[in-house]
């Protein structure tokens, strides 16, 4: 084949660590055979050799080049196999693909982040980036929701984040238990509690489609302009290159034109919440 890089050929990476985040979610720390760079919000394809691949936005810091971490919810046949991975196993990664978070548009602003379930993964990567550049932002408010307390992921990270100046963390669960001393209810209820200057703020949303939908509507209701709401879309991204067609959302290939879009960009495309 020609001298160009083969866009379909995965880079091999060794599983260094497996972290159980919740009953259905695990994180995998991967050591690629060569350094691997990505910008926050971009995604990779993770290949199980000879079996299949699936798209994930790394949950680790984009400043780390030697390791990459992905957080995976067991949902389909590839993710079930990923959950069986053990330390030392070899996987493939392709990418990074797409358009991530436009940090330059966040500079000087208050950032409100709305995350649900495994949608915390891209957000954690974004938060690492925001922490590293915290002097460039006014304030960061994370509103995170999960079904139950045991479904809340990244507990140690959240504890650390709460100690970082300018960062505030609010959490809710749909169904609380006795030990839960934070909010109960769907994640959007957290937006009622925040103090934010919307005129100088941007909002970031990532989570299951239904949460993205109602989260976006709530932000619009609060007065956020459509161009200041940034959504990380989840579609069937397969090739990652805007060719295979599986992730088309109207005129966009989510893999190439996204996965991060403003609501303004995608509001007229069909079935964005499905």
């Amino acid at each position, binding site marked *: 084949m020609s001298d160009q890089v083969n*866009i*379909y*050929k995965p880079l091999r990476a060794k599983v260094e660590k497996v972290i159980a985040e919740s009953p259905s979610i695990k994180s995998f720390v991967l050591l690629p055979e060569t350094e691997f760079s990505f910008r926050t919000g971009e995604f990779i394809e993770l290949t199980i*050799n000879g079996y299949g691949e699936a798209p994930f936005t790394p949950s680790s810091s984009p400043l780390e080049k030697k390791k990459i971490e992905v957080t995976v919810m067991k949902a389909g*046949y590839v993710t079930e196999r990923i959950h069986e991975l053990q330390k030392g196993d070899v996987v493939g990664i392709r990418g990074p693909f797409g358009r991530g978070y436009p940090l330059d548009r966040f500079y000087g602003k208050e950032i409100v982040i709305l995350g649900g379930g495994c949608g915390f993964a891209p957000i954690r990567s974004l938060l690492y980036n925001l922490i590293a550049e915290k002097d460039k932002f006014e304030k960061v408010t994370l509103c995170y929701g999960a079904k139950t307390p045991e479904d809340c992921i990244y507990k140690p990270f959240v504890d650390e984040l709460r100690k970082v100046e300018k960062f505030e963390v609010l959490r809710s669960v749909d169904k609380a238990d006795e030990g839960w001393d934070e909010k109960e209810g769907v994640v959007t209820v957290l937006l009622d509690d925040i103090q934010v200057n919307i005129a100088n703020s941007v909002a970031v949303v990532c989570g299951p489609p239904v949460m993205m939908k109602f989260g976006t509507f709530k932000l619009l209701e609060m007065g956020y302009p459509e161009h200041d709401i940034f959504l990380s879309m*989840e579609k069937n991204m397969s090739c990652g290159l805007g*060719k295979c067609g*599986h992730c088309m959302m109207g*005129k966009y290939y989510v893999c190439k034109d996204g996965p991060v879009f403003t609501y303004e960009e995608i509001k007229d495309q069909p079935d964005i919440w*499905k």
Partner: protein
Amino acid sequence: MNDVLEITRDNWNLFLASLLDEMNIFVPVNNGYSTEYKLFTSDLENVVYNRPIPVTPLKQFFLPVKENVVINKEIHNKKLIIGIPSCDLAGLDLLDEIYLDERFVDSAYKDNRDHTILIGTDCHDIRENCHCTSYGIEPYPESNADATLAAIDGKMIFTVKSDKGSALFDRCRKSFPVEKPGEAMLKQVQQKRKETKDKLAAQNQHLPDYAATGDLIKRSGEDIWIRHSSTCVSCGACATICPTCTCFLLIDRPDFEKVRQVDACQYPGFERIAAGEDPLRKKHVRFRNRYMCKYVWKPETFKSIACTGCGRCIDCCIGNISKNKIFLEMAANS
């Protein structure tokens, strides 16, 4: 680069035979019902030129049904494809835009393109669903061909269109008796072109053009899609046989190899994600999706058109669905 030569059909066949050691040559053959590409041999019968659309589109040579896109191919078989209609040549614009996008070049596709010489043909006849001219494509090659060919009265009129075509032209000229076609012959070529255009104009006189079709589709209600998709069996033939449909499935193989396999948005589950969401769950939505893709979304993001009017999707549909009938109905109701 518009060198033209005239060669007898017998000598043309001898010329092709002289190339067989170097390349695989595909020519259109009449199988009694339709035309299909077959490997040329000296004794191959029923080779037909100037016929409209072979059953399978040109894309099969560049995007085969299955292709390993990770392994390095050490040997590239050179191909010479002869008798390509202009609709299929025009379809290459979109394929190239997608697969040769300089940010993400598909090497396997590029290799297939680089090692192929394309000889287009004037169509001297039309099929009942041909409608290239409705979408601004002439029934004779204008782009993407290395050379063009018209067979008239036992003579082949060969016109150079690229460097690759020029090299072939020189080889032919050096080894076989060729002539410069006379005025009368060139007039015949033009006359045949005009006749084909007239036939297409008569056949498709009420069919809306490409842009108008996009507008009609955008304005259409759900009802028309539910009604017309009622006989669709989601077989995907319309997409797999289309010269501009390019979707594929990436299949994993051992040793981290991947196979690119032709896919179609008409198959259930095409856009389904692991968590279960599926924007194209309903059949009529999948059905409409293909039309939106070709006439509304692709024109918004690509320079190339996504339907070349070949009519294969109508020919192949076992549900007897005709997109042209749908568009005529939309136009009549607009």
